[in-house]
């Protein structure tokens, strides 16, 4: 290393430190909370259920999960260093103090609207929220600290027959649908965190698209963790009936906190015959400071049941946030000729750890799956792709294509690829490609000599690396995601 390099490195390190001292979205707003008592026991579960005015069957379902959870153990197989979590030292329920049931956005607490503004909700959605005529329609079911406070476009969706509600409302208004599908894809006992979620989930989203309906707009939900020490347990259930189509966007950032925050969401998707669900995520929860202090723990269970023939589920995710990410959006390809897709960009910087990937379980004949995973590691972070492709014995003519690419920035980070392939039918065609590369000094200098700052150059090169995945995102998200990649890697090359 020449002295020039050393000074660049020192300066960049200083700049990075200054920046993280001032996390762009690290603010916290000041809204009165009504807390459940600290800690977790059966009373907490009953409190949550009572706050939600839930029917008896729902309470029983939660209690069953809680009792099962007590007998389970935390996962330890991931390549993650997970600090001990004291589940008694957290609140399991907090909601913005409700004045009354809200009918329109005008009635929303202006403080909450300001928070969304600071979050930089995409301009298209801001227009829609502001009621600008001719704006492209995106329905926003805003989840603020566990409770949906505003739902727009409910009427138009209603006309199409699409049900788009908070899960609490759905439990009250469509108990039969919820009862039929809740836990049908991710059983309560599936894993430790899914089981915990089943007991204490506070809110989330329910979508039902009836037979033959193409959902008239992209559905979008913003999650945001806002109360100190409040674990966030979202529950999402999307059911696409025969021949229907829906595209769902999920995006989030979180304010800065000193204590680690646990997030354990469950997302279940069900696609019947000829139905298609596109689920896109941009995840930007606070990753912690340069030493890894204060970030979100993100333990998410996302799974789709491609139940019907020719059904299709496509997961696209851009993961830049959280101190720890443990997440495997998966597809059970039960229907004949069903299709599962997983497109992922996972960025880790500083001390972040991500163990993420997918499972494609082929049960139906002629089912197909595609996996494209782009891992980007910087700083002292660790980034693992973990994926399973399983072909059951009765599944004829299954095809899978998997591509895992890792990009390293610097020499203190790690990239790991852990593919599991289990094939029990000889007619299957499984392809796996993997590459690992580094951003070269040549590329950086080339881009800089054309006028790009080092950070812009890194952002450009990384976006190029992730292009295959980014182009899967709806327009609303693609631009935001591109910016996010750059922001996440600021100060990572020296």
């Amino acid at each position, binding site marked *: 290393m020449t002295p020039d*390099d050393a000074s660049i490195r020192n300066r960049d390190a200083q700049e990075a430190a200054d920046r993280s001292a001032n996390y762009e979205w690290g603010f916290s707003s000041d809204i009165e909370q009504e807390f459940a008592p600290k800690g977790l026991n059966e009373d907490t579960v009953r409190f949550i259920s009572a706050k939600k005015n839930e029917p008896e069957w729902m309470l029983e379902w939660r209690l069953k999960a809680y009792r099962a959870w007590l007998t389970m153990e935390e996962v330890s197989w991931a390549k993650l260093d997970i600090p001990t979590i004291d589940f008694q030292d957290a609140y399991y329920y907090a909601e913005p103090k409700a004045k009354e049931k809200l009918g329109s956005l005008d009635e929303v607490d202006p403080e909450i609207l300001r928070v969304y503004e600071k979050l930089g909700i995409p301009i298209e959605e801001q227009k829609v929220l502001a009621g600008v005529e001719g704006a492209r329609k995106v329905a926003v079911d805003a989840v603020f600290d566990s409770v949906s406070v505003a739902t727009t476009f409910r009427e138009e969706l209603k006309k199409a027959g699409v049900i788009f509600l908070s899960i609490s409302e759905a439990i009250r208004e469509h108990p039969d649908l919820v009862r039929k599908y809740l836990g049908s894809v991710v059983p309560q006992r599936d894993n430790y965190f899914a089981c915990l979620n089943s007991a204490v989930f506070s809110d989330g989203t329910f979508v039902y698209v009836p037979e033959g309906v193409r959902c008239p707009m992209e559905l979008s939900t913003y999650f945001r963790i806002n109360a100190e020490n409040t674990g966030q347990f979202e529950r999402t259930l999307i059911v696409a009936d025969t021949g229907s189509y829906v595209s769902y966007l999920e995006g989030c950032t979180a304010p800065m906190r000193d204590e680690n925050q646990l997030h354990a969401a469950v997302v279940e998707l069900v696609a019947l015959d000829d139905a298609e669900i596109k689920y896109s995520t941009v995840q930007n929860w606070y990753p912690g400071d340069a030493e890894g202090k204060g970030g979100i723990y993100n333990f998410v269970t996302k799974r789709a049941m491609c139940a019907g023939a020719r059904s299709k589920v496509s997961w696209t995710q851009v993961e830049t946030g959280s101190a720890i990410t443990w997440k495997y959006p998966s597809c059970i390809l039960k229907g004949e000729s069903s299709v599962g897709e997983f497109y992922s960009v996972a960025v880790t910087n500083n001390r972040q750890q991500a163990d993420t990937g997918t499972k494609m379980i082929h049960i139906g004949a002629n089912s197909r799956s595609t996996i494209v995973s782009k891992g980007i590691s910087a700083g002292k972070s660790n980034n693992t792709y973990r994926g399973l492709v399983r072909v059951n014995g009765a599944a004829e003519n299954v095809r899978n294509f998997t591509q895992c690419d890792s990009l390293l920035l610097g020499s203190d980070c790690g990239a790991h690829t852990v593919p599991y392939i289990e094939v029990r039918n000889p007619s299957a065609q499984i392809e796996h490609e993997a590459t690992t590369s580094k951003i070269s000094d040549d590329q950086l200098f*080339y881009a*800089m*000599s054309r006028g790009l700052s080092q950070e812009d150059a890194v952002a450009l090169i990384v976006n190029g690396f992730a292009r295959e995945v980014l182009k899967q995102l709806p327009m609303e998200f693609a631009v935001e995601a591109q910016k996010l990649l750059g922001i996440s890697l600021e100060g990572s090359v020296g």
Partner: protein
Amino acid sequence: MLKIDNLHAIVDGKPILKGISLTLNPGEIHAVMGPNGSGKSTLSYVLAGRPGYEVTEGTVALDGEDLLALEPHERAAKGMFLGFQYPVEIPGVSNVQFLRTALNAQRRARGEVELSAGDFLRLAREQADALGIDMEMMKRAVNVGFSGGEKKRNEMVQLGIIDPRLAILDETDSGLDIDALRIVGQGINRIMRKPDKTVLLITHYQRLLDTVEPDFVHVLADGRIVRSGGSELALELEREGYGAVAA
């Protein structure tokens, strides 16, 4: 425009440039010629600010300003362009995206208005047409899958789009066939042969200089300029070889 004074530089601890002095005025084209290992590429990298090329002595001033204190992208914003001997591939990033981002970064740094997507595409099409390059190629990833000749022509499209005041062209002629060489040479003349612009042309051979006639020719050997003269010096080199001329 550019004043290089007693420039010394080391790479990996090894002295490569051993006291180079050159003054390049607006409206001038200077050719630097020399055998392999004489320090030609090092000179271009030092001027463009490549990390790892360390200046140990001497100064370089661009319009009186200390060039060596600037980052590579700041030098670009001041109007300097380096044409690469080996243009670099950037997978997944289209030429159009790359150049528009770069050009607008420069314009921002200079306090100028950024070009809209439409204006930029018009500019790109104009420059690509002038060099006989298909716009389809401009939509492909930067230099990925390009032949050697295509890469060099792509550098010239970049030169045209970015439209710098000072171009340092490092062996832009290498790997080109006769026709491509003429196209590239004409491109340099069209873009850079102007009263307010300056070119430092680094080359092995006389060939390119048939099209781009230099005002001055300098012979570099072992990190020093051993002779300077007019365009006739290039012909003498071609005839008698570096050994005779540099001796």
